[in-house]
């Protein structure tokens, strides 16, 4: 078992997440992609923690999971509101902050 196997996996996961964030128009899918990014980070944290014999990595991963759950809750609520107002969850249409 090598560390870099975990890292490469995490990197692939990260890239998929990024791709999803940037490309998908569906708000729910964007949120899921963000979830992917966060979990790729979690993998990295756990992997580093295991290889270095440090429990802190796993503790940190736990925190990230908790925060991610909250984030998804808020994100879904936003998406829900957008949908209610616009009858659409296309993020490309949500440009009210345009300068």
């Amino acid at each position, binding site marked *: 078992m090598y560390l870099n196997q975990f890292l490469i996996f995490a990197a692939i996961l990260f890239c998929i997440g990024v791709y999803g*964030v940037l490309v998908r128009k569906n708000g729910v899918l964007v949120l899921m992609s963000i979830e992917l990014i966060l979990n790729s980070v979690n993998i990295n944290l756990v992997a580093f923690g295991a290889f270095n014999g440090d429990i802190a990595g796993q503790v940190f991963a736990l925190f990230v999971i908790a925060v991610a759950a909250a984030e998804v809750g808020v994100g879904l609520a936003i998406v829900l509101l957008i949908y209610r107002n616009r009858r659409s969850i296309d*993020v*490309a249409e949500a*440009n009210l902050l345009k*300068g």
Partner: protein
Amino acid sequence: MFAAEAAETAVPWLYENVWLIPALPATSFLLILFFGKRLPFKGAEIGITSVVAAFVLAVLTTFTWVGDVEGGNTAYGTVKVADEKHSDEEHGDDHSHSEDEDHGSSEEEHDDEEHDDEGALLVDGDGGDAQPIAFTAGSLAAVEEGDYEPRGAAVVTEVNWFESGLNVFRIGTLVDGQSVMMLFVVTFISMLVHIYSTDYVNGDRRYTHYFAFLSLFTASMLFMVLSSNTLQLIVGWELVGVCSFGLIGHWWEEKPNSDAALKAFLTNRVGDIGLLVGMSILFFGAGQTFDIVEINTKALNGEISGTVTTWAAVCLMAAVMSKSGQFILHTWLPDAMAGPTPVSALIHAATMVVAGVYMIGRLYGVFWEGFSIFGGTLNLMAFIGGLTTVGGGLLAFVQRDIKKVLAYSTVSQLGYMVLALGVGAYTAAMFHLFTHAFFKACLFLGAGSVSHACHHSFDMKADMGGLRKHMPITFWTFIIGSAALAGVPPLAGFWSKDEILIGAGVWPGTGGNGTYLIPFIFGMLTAAMTAAYMTRTVWLTFFGEYRGHDHPHESGRRITVPLIILATMAVFVGFLNVPKSFVSTIGLPEDWGLLFEEWVEPAGQTYFPFDGFTHAKPSLSLAIVATLLATGAGFLVLRYYQALYRKDPMASEYSDGLRARNGLAAAGYRVLENKYYLDHLYTGIIAGATKGPLARAAYWFNQNVLDGIVNVAGFISVRAGRFIYYFIDQGVVDGTVNASGRTASGSGQFLRRIQTGQVRQYATLMFGAAALLAAVFIFAV
């Protein structure tokens, strides 16, 4: 005061309180000013009362003085009032003037004896040594020649006036022969003029005002006469000047009168430059003091350097020239005749104009040293006096106006007095001042009486002639006055003039203080001329046929009585100073001779010339020659007019006289008629230039150059301001501000494009940036 007087030499009350004499008319001035118009006689009664009271006091003072001198009761010492407020704290401990320390210490002595009640007098009666100024009372300790009994020491009474620097300036009175003589003259003439004026200016538009000014003048003149220091002298000197101004311009509605007043005042101011400068020089020269006695003493002791006394004397001479009408500043005096005639008699003949002569007498020590009068042959004073006496006499010949004749005659006689002082004949000068006051006042008042009769005209040629039949009293008094002026023996003028002539020291056997040939010649010439022009005046006025248009009549008693009194004086006052040899010749006690000299001259005192000061000896031959000269000249003029009368009784001059025939004579006459062109010089050139081009140039300079600079500076500032505003402020400074604003908004315009509102785009940027940073971290580190 009385406690202090317990000492053996009690100072007569009158000497200490002689200030009452000027105070009386001064009070009268104020009373007339504020209440005069409401009184039954419009204020004249106050004026007359006060001047009579002053005269009585003056006579009493004179008798006291004469009694003291005769009784040999001389040294009272100097009376000084204690310094009421003389805080030592104020007087620095470390000042450099050593003179003042002497002063300071002696004044502190006085502090010890301070009296509490105000005005308390502290009389230091015990001789010279304890005096603040030790020499004031001192008679000449060692009289080398043994000639003179020291007599008539000045009695000074002073109070503190003010302090400046380390000096305490005092104000007070100085009583000595000279001031007592003047007190008598001023109050006497003033009294007669007051009485005369009640008739003469009766019904005048400013009757009350006239009397107020007469009172003020009398007060100022007496104040000046009694001055114990030169500062006070200056004050009095100017005050009489301003009274003269007010009275010359009494009828100021007419411009010539106010012009004459202005001329008098301004000419005197020119002389006052000399007075102010001269007195300043003396003040410092004598070690910061204004005290007359001290200045004289120091000058005679040689404590003041010769240069200083000379400069001071020259400067003061300028003041004498203006005030006493000496050439070349005499021109105001004839013009001053624009004033009422009694004023001319009082101010411009008897009293004020002799102030210059009086001042020379007061500071004779300074002039004596300054001009080195002893043993000289000519000096500035004698020369100016001589020039004036001849120049004035010549001018008197060509006047039509009787008052102007008398005015020029006054100029001429004043020149005589100055000449006398210049040759060292102090007593002769004072005596001439004394006698001249009476006969010249008599003549002026007589001229006033004449004009009163001839409807206020003074033109002898047009409106007079033959008046002897119509106004006999005026005629006889005028004749006596003229004879006295011309020096006909034994009238007053003869004696005084004779003394001046012998004083020049030229005539064999007279001695004198030097040999003043030129002044002597001038004096002799004047003696002849005076007789001649007075004969002309008398003839034109009183003889021949009446040329006016009216019926002249004798004046009232308020005019004739003063005339008679003055004529009597003109006859008799000369006997006050006849030579002792003459007195003994006619079988009288020798003591009766030279009384005036004994009473007035402070010979033997330290403050009066002693070194080489001698009296000239009388000379019978000179008296005879001078008298012959005068009577001869008078006689010639008389014959001239008699011939004219025979030709045409109504004529006042020959139609084909010398002037018509001889070009030189005509030219001379023109010069005289134009008064040597001095008026043209003063009014036309000097005053004209000052008032015209010079003042205009100064003002032009002010408006165009100075103000121009200011305005140009202002203009340039405005221009610079505009430049700064438009280019720097609006362009650069504001430009920067604007540019920054523009930049901000421009960049904003650019940057807003980034903000699309597209979340994904933001995310792209974020990830791109993160990637970029990662790359940087990876490859750069």
